[in-house]
């Protein structure tokens, strides 16, 4: 596809993702990747489970390097995430796009998907599964950030750490919040590749 054909087609389609969504989306993509890959390296220093992450998919090279990445990218993740959530609420986008989620829609979407009859004609409308996943990953984002804060400052913010069940329990909360986000990312990226125009929409807006 050439640049001119993109331009011609673009003008004929409505804007699905306003520019603030696209900017915060891609900043978040970079921040989350850095957080996950450096987080895996940090995990390897004292694994919670009987496995470690391969160094080929971690960032930082050793613990100190990973910590430098993690505690730098956290600012990007948190500040960008807060801007995204604030704009999502203020502009009404969350209310319009993500709510309400009805159990009937959820059932219908799963049924259609299992028969490969899911419609992607209108990218601006999310089905119930999409709504659930997008809301869910926003919640997971909050949990990962707050549990991370509780691990970083278990003395100064000890009430927060206590809410998560104490220092050791907070490590598990942080891990499973990460795992939830990774699970979302796998589905998210696969579906974006299956429906390429959704990827295009997140770049050009249309």
């Amino acid at each position, binding site marked *: 596809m050439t640049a001119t054909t993109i331009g011609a087609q673009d003008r004929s389609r409505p804007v699905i993702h306003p520019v603030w969504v696209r900017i915060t989306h891609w*900043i978040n993509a*970079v921040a989350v990747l*850095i957080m996950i890959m450096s987080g895996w390296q*940090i*995990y390897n*220093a*004292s694994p919670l489970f009987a496995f470690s992450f391969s*160094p080929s998919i971690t*960032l*930082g*090279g*050793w*613990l*100190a*390097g990973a*910590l*430098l*990445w993690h*505690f*730098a*990218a956290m*600012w*990007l993740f948190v500040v960008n995430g807060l801007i995204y959530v604030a704009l999502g609420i203020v502009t009404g986008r969350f209310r319009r796009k993500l709510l309400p989620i009805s159990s009937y829609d959820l059932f219908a979407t799963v049924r259609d998907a299992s028969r490969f009859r899911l419609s992607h004609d209108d990218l601006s409308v999310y089905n119930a599964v999409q709504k659930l996943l997008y809301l869910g990953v926003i919640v997971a984002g909050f949990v990962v950030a707050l549990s991370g804060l509780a691990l970083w*400052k*278990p*003395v*100064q913010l*000890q009430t927060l750490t206590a809410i998560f069940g104490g*220092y*050791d329990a907070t*490590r598990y909360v942080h891990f499973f919040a990460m795992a939830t986000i990774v699970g979302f990312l796998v589905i998210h990226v696969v579906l974006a590749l299956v429906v390429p125009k959704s990827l295009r929409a997140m770049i050009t807006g249309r």
Partner: protein
Amino acid sequence: MKRLRRLIPGVDQKLLLKDAGKIMPDPARRAFLRGGLSLGALTMLTGCDIVDSISAEKVLRKVSEFNDGVQAWLFDPNQLALTHPKSAITKPFPFNAYYALEDAPDIDGKDYRFEVGGLVQSTKPWTLDELYALPQETQITRHICVEGWSAIGSWTGVRLSEFLRRVGADTRAKYVWFQCAEGYSTTIDMPTALHPQTQLTFKFGDEILPRAYGYPMKCRMPTKLGFKNPKYIIAMHVTNKDLGGYWENQGYNWFSGL
């Protein structure tokens, strides 16, 4: 650091050499820098003026320094770390260092002298008996390692703030620097040094501090990560100059507060 080390008697030269060889393995070092190169896009987003000479590692270290400031601001001098009952003590409490236990300093308590220097009125060295005569208290707190694991231990000793008062330290100074027998060192901020739970520790549980945990003296700070709690302390300086530390100089966050 070399100059300072020479000032301190009793530093084990053999261990110092071992130290130097222990600096991170080459492949890991390269991976760290390689990771650094791909930071380009990220640093542009933060609006930094990217010049070829400014490496990603430098940018990351700048952010780490910024985080030092944030942590100093977050630090509440009256916020105490949680204390635990005796039954919560982790047994066995882990030994952790960049060397094996048999390489840990083996200090003779009779010859031990704790050197005090910098912005203090009295630089008289302290014997162990003199230190043991100071008022002591016990804390059962959680030790949290930078690696992520944690363990609860019982430490007994004198408040560092009390010791600083007795040597006539200028507590308006910014830092307290510790030198350890094996060449390890660390620098802490004065507000943490004056925290009521920051302790010059002589005992672990009911026993004189064992060799594994820093005999004859460590500095226990439940408000900082484990590596900021130096063991085998042989000297302390009150200073306005950040003298760094063993791990801090290699890239670990300087403040490392909890």
